[in-house]
């Protein structure tokens, strides 16, 4: 009883400190826990892999730096996969504050694979109004985005010559941290135009994605940092990339932190049970 009362009085700052240690130690000295890809991640990987070389993959950056640790590794891994397979890439975004991340990821990965802007990849950037953008691209991408992120007319970019609308996009991936994001693309692009799509979401939104996965509206799903590590694992296993894998490196810390939280939840509940029982006994007396 006294033990649990003592536990209940622990300053939360001590718990923060323990959590920090539990996260930092495996980052410095990794345990090398094995990470395997789930069938959901494999489905996204296989859909990208099945795009014929020369055809485009479209990626929407629907996140900002607040979700960078979860979604940015997904973006770089997918870009590496596509560029290694000579798949053309079109990147755009519904979140204005995510545009810097898109630019950074494209610059880094295109350099690794010697890809040329306008010929191998295009950055459309952001336009205001979510629905007009998604619906407009279903009719004509060039009318919705007359110019790219840098102000170049789309007609002047050779890669865009054969691309008119969603019918010319074999696969689309939204990297979504909320709204507008996955649900918006499903409602307006998938349901209306039949766009084949997958999603990479923050772990918070991953539970919401499963109903769409079950109905086939989503081809595959990458959920949170674990999803990113699964994609990193797949592209490394198939030899598409030798780059650093930040999400996979974080999996030891993630697992250990989860274990700590589980222990705290169990201890907290047992302690609460005994403290409440003790209080009830005192009241009876």
């Amino acid at each position, binding site marked *: 009883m006294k033990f649990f009362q003592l536990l209940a009085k622990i300053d939360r*700052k001590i718990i923060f400190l323990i959590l920090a240690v539990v996260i930092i130690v495996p980052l410095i000295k990794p345990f090398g826990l094995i990470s395997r890809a789930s069938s959901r991640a494999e489905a996204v990987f296989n859909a990208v892999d099945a795009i014929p070389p020369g055809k485009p993959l479209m990626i929407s950056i629907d996140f900002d730096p607040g979700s960078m640790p979860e979604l940015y590794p997904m973006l770089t891994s997918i870009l590496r996969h596509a560029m290694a397979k000579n798949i053309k890439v079109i990147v755009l975004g519904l979140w204005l504050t995510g545009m810097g991340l898109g630019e950074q990821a494209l610059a880094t990965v295109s350099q690794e694979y010697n890809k040329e802007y306008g010929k191998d990849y295009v950055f459309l950037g952001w336009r205001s109004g979510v629905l007009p953008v998604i619906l407009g691209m279903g009719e004509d991408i060039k009318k919705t985005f007359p110019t790219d992120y840098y102000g170049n007319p789309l007609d002047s970019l050779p890669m865009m010559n054969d691309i008119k609308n969603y019918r010319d996009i074999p696969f689309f991936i939204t990297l979504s941290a909320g709204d507008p994001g996955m649900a918006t693309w499903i409602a307006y692009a998938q*349901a209306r135009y039949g766009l084949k799509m997958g999603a990479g979401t923050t772990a918070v939104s991953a539970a919401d994605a499963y109903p769409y996965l079950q109905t086939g509206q989503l081809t595959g799903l990458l959920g949170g*940092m674990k999803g990113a590590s699964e994609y990193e694992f797949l592209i490394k296993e198939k030899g598409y990339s030798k780059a650093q894998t930040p999400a996979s490196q974080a999996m030891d*810390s993630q697992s250990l932190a989860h274990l700590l939280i589980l222990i705290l939840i169990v201890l907290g509940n047992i302690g609460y049970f005994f403290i409440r029982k003790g209080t009830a006994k005192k009241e009876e007396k």
Partner: protein
Amino acid sequence: MNLATNIWTWIGAFLTFFIFSFLYRDNPFYKFAEHLFVGVSVGYSISISYHNVLYPDLIVPLFKHGQLLNIVPLVFGLCYFARFVPKGAWLVRLPMGLVLGFGAGAAIPATLQASIIKQLQGAVLTPSIFSRWDFFLWALISLVGVICTIIYFFFSKERVKSTKFAAEIGIIFLMVGFGASFGYTVMARISLLIGRFQFLLRDWLGIIK
């Protein structure tokens, strides 16, 4: 250890510590970082909006190419600012009405199709489900979950014995759903913390690769 030489990495590291200091208690360093974040986000948004929307979609067509039709969206957009003038505040209803009308018109059929009809199809037992016993089992559990949860949210009639039982089963499904969401939320928050530590240990201190 390989300390960063980039000044922006140092600024990022210090701002991270300023935000972390809130874990101890609210303080001026945290307030400074918080306000700086809001200010930078708004400034960045205005700049991107100007260069990606206002300039190419309004200023160039209207003032450089003389496409006078663009005056219509310009006037509609300016009506938003009528809110600051009490006598003309009603003008804000024009763009608001347009946005709401378009939004509702586009959203209702799309949401019905994507979130209700498709989800109903997913919940119904179809012949393909009988191809494997595990497919059938999961589909059956989903169907029971959908029906019982809907019964739980049916408040128009007092529950009798059978509907009460179904509603209680519905609560179990809801709790499992909440548990899954909470688990994923913990995972998300831990991921963000790991991201910050990776930045501090790799980009700033150069301890890890």
